[in-house]
Structures are given as structure tokens and as C-alpha cells.
């Protein structure tokens, strides 16, 4: 997701200036997605260019509030109504890393899996600690964000367990290297 929709959703509540947008954004995601003020203003100027928001006259304090336009409301409604496709998310670097590790000679694949599992577990512990500190309905928004991260980390650990089990099961069954690329030796075949 881009910051664009986050800011549009906040402006839907009412006019806000840059600093308020940043604070509200971080509050609604429990600080799991920190923004710098530069990102906020860059996004606001793009939104203004596309007629999705408009800037209002400056306050006495020199702060310029922004309000959402009808086009902005329509854009936001479309975003809420459209499911997020898997293809819209970045490619999974970890899956690619493991796939490459399997086909690269001399790489300790079980070692990579364990190191990743420990790192992911550590994150999961920390998310859980953060979750323990939440209480009450006021925290619901960001607890849901946090739980999303918890479930994703859990899924990653489960997938790593699965990779390890697959590796253990298939390791004793060496298959001949492909004739077209004899230099590409499966790591486990090399050690088996």
C-alpha cells in the first residue's frame, strides 16, 4: 500500500495539516509504520496535483490544512472496495533466497533456515510483547495491525519448518544434475 490512501482516509475524517496527518497515521497503525514529515508533504503535493486533495489558506501559526476533494473520496471508496491482490505486494525475498540457496553449491541451507527462524521468532516475541501492552477498545485498530504482523510471522515460521522437513526428506535421494547445466549442483546432493 502507498501512503496515499492512508492520508486520504485520514482527511476523510476532516481537514488536517501535515504534522497532524503524520501523528494520526502513526496512531492508527500503532507506530508500526513510522512516517517522516517529508514523505507526508511529498505525498500531499502529489495528491493535490491529481486533484484528490486541496490545500486551504494557512492558519495564523503558518500551518496549511488540507481537505479531501470529491475525486479523492471516490478514489478512497474504490480502494476500500477493491481486494488487495497478491501481485500488488512485493516479491518474497526470503522464498527467492531459499530457492537460490538450494541450487547454489556450498550453501548451508539448513543454516539459513534456522537463522531465519530465530530472527522471525524474535520478531514474533517482540510483537507479542507489544500486544500484551494493548488493552481496551481504543487500541483495537492498531492491535489488528499488530496481529496481522503476528500471523504473518507465524506463517513464515511454519513455512520454514515445512522447508526444513522437505529438505530432510528429500536429501537422501540424489537426483542426477541436469545434462544441460552440469555445473549446477544441488547443495544437498553435494553433501549427501
Amino acid at each position: 500500500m502507498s501512503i496515499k490512501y492512508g492520508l486520504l482516509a485520514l482527511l476523510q475524517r476532516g481537514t488536517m495539516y501535515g504534522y497532524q496527518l503524520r501523528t494520526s497515521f502513526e496512531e492508527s497503525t500503532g507506530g508500526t509504520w513510522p512516517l517522516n514529515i517529508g514523505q507526508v508533504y511529498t505525498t500531499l503535493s502529489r495528491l493535490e496535483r491529481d486533484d484528490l486533495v486541496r490545500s486551504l489558506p494557512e492558519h495564523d501559526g503558518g500551518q496549511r490544512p488540507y481537505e479531501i476533494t470529491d475525486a479523492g473520496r471516490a478514489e478512497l471508496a474504490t480502494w476500500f472496495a477493491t481486494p488487495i491482490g497478491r501481485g500488488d505486494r512485493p516479491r518474497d525475498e526470503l522464498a527467492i533466497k531459499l530457492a537460490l540457496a538450494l541450487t547454489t553449491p556450498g550453501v548451508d541451507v539448513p543454516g539459513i533456515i534456522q537463522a531465519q527462524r530465530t530472527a522471525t521468532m524474535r520478531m514474533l516475541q517482540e510483537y507479542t510483547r507489544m500486544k500484551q501492552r494493548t488493552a481496551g477498545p481504543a487500541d483495537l485498530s492498531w492491535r489488528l495491525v499488530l496481529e496481522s504482523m503476528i500471523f504473518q510471522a507465524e506463517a513464515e515460521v511454519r513455512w520454514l519448518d515445512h522447508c526444513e522437513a522437505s529438505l530432510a526428506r528429500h536429501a537422501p535421494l540424489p537426483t542426477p544434475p541436469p545434462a544441460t547445466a552440469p555445473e549446477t549442483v544441488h547443495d544437498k546432493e553435494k553433501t549427501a
Partner: protein
Amino acid sequence: MSVLELRDVHRIHGSGEATVLALRGVSMIVRPGELVAVMGPSGSGKSTLLNLAGGLDGPTQGEVAVEGTVLGGLNRKALAVLRRHSIGYVFQDLNLLPSLTAAENIALPLELDGVGVRRARRAALTSLAEVDLEGYAQRFPDEMSGGQQQRVAIARALVGQRRLILADEPTGALDSQTGEAVLRLLRAKVDAGAAGVLVTHEARHAAWADRVVFLRDGVVVDTSGPLAEPEHLLDGASS
């Protein structure tokens, strides 16, 4: 002082060709206020470790000490007293006695330990309140849901002054909200000064622990503690 200490513990099952090296040189210390999760695939030695920690089984080599007492040095009777007095067990199969009420199930280990019936009952009621089951003292196990029965089993494990809580997949087949309530209870008991060991294959449950020990083929392959600075977690969240 540590509540639980395993020193270079080995456990071999069977002999000859049927020998299984369940644990191979495991060392571990669990202090008061500390919850340690043990994770690993089936057959990695998790349950063997828990049985050794609880004095339900003895090591082939090495030592297990609970509150400084080496279990191998105790006779059967002394070991049974230590188990009843200092150790609380929460297992996946709840082992609640069907002919006893919730309160009676909880009071039973105290009564076996020589505590008077009235005192044991008072402690049982307190323990039931801790797991939010105040009104269920007179219910029999088959009059309660799976989640409620699990909470009774936890209340029984936590009753009295247990210093070491051992839990083997305590959330069993519970739904995620009820399972989380069980973990919160365990965490609270540990935060109040007990030491806990939680065996689980679920990462989300292990994450409630202060440390996670990974077992593979009877060997500790890695240990994960939480980060000191949670801010690091948020790096990359904006990318």
C-alpha cells in the same frame, strides 16, 4: 537462584539397535519470572525434556535440579513430595478426574500434600477465581466446555505455591481466543515469580516466552530471546 537447571542432560531410550538418543547434552537454566518455550518437530526431544524437568523421568547422564535440589539424589517419596509441592503440570490431555467437581480436582494435589480439607478448598477457590471461573466450583468436568476444563487444569497446576510450571501444548485444540487466554494466565503466573517451561509447536504461542529454545534430534540448535529495542522491528515496515 535458578528454579530449574538441566546440566548436560542425556536421555537414551531402549538399547542395542533400538536405541533412541532422545536428548544429547542439553543444558538449560530457568530463573524465577522467566518463561522458556521449547520448540521442535515431533521426535526432537521436547516431551522428554519436560518429563525430565518434572521428575517424571530420569536422565541417563547429567543432572536435573529444581530449586537447587538435584532430582537424581532423591528417593521416590521425596521426589513425589517435591513434585506435588513445587511443580505444576499442564498437559494437553487434561487428566481431570470426572467424578470430582472443579474445586475438588484443584484441591486434590494439596490434600495429597497434607494440607487440610478446608484450607485446600479455600486455595482451590482462589485458584478458580484466578482463571475467571468463580461460579464453577461445583461443576463436574463434563458440565464444562473444553476451554473451561483447560482453565480448571491450569488452576490445578497453579494452585498453592508452585514455583515451576511445566506446560505441554497447553492450548491443545482450543480456539485462538481461548488459547490466548490460557497463555495470558501462564504468563501472569510467571510474571508473579514462578518459572515456566512451555513445550509447543506453535510459533505464535512460543512467542509469549522470554526465550525460545529450538530442539532438533535431542540437541539445542538455537535460542531466541526478544530484541532489546522494539523500534528495530519497525524498520522496513514503510518499504
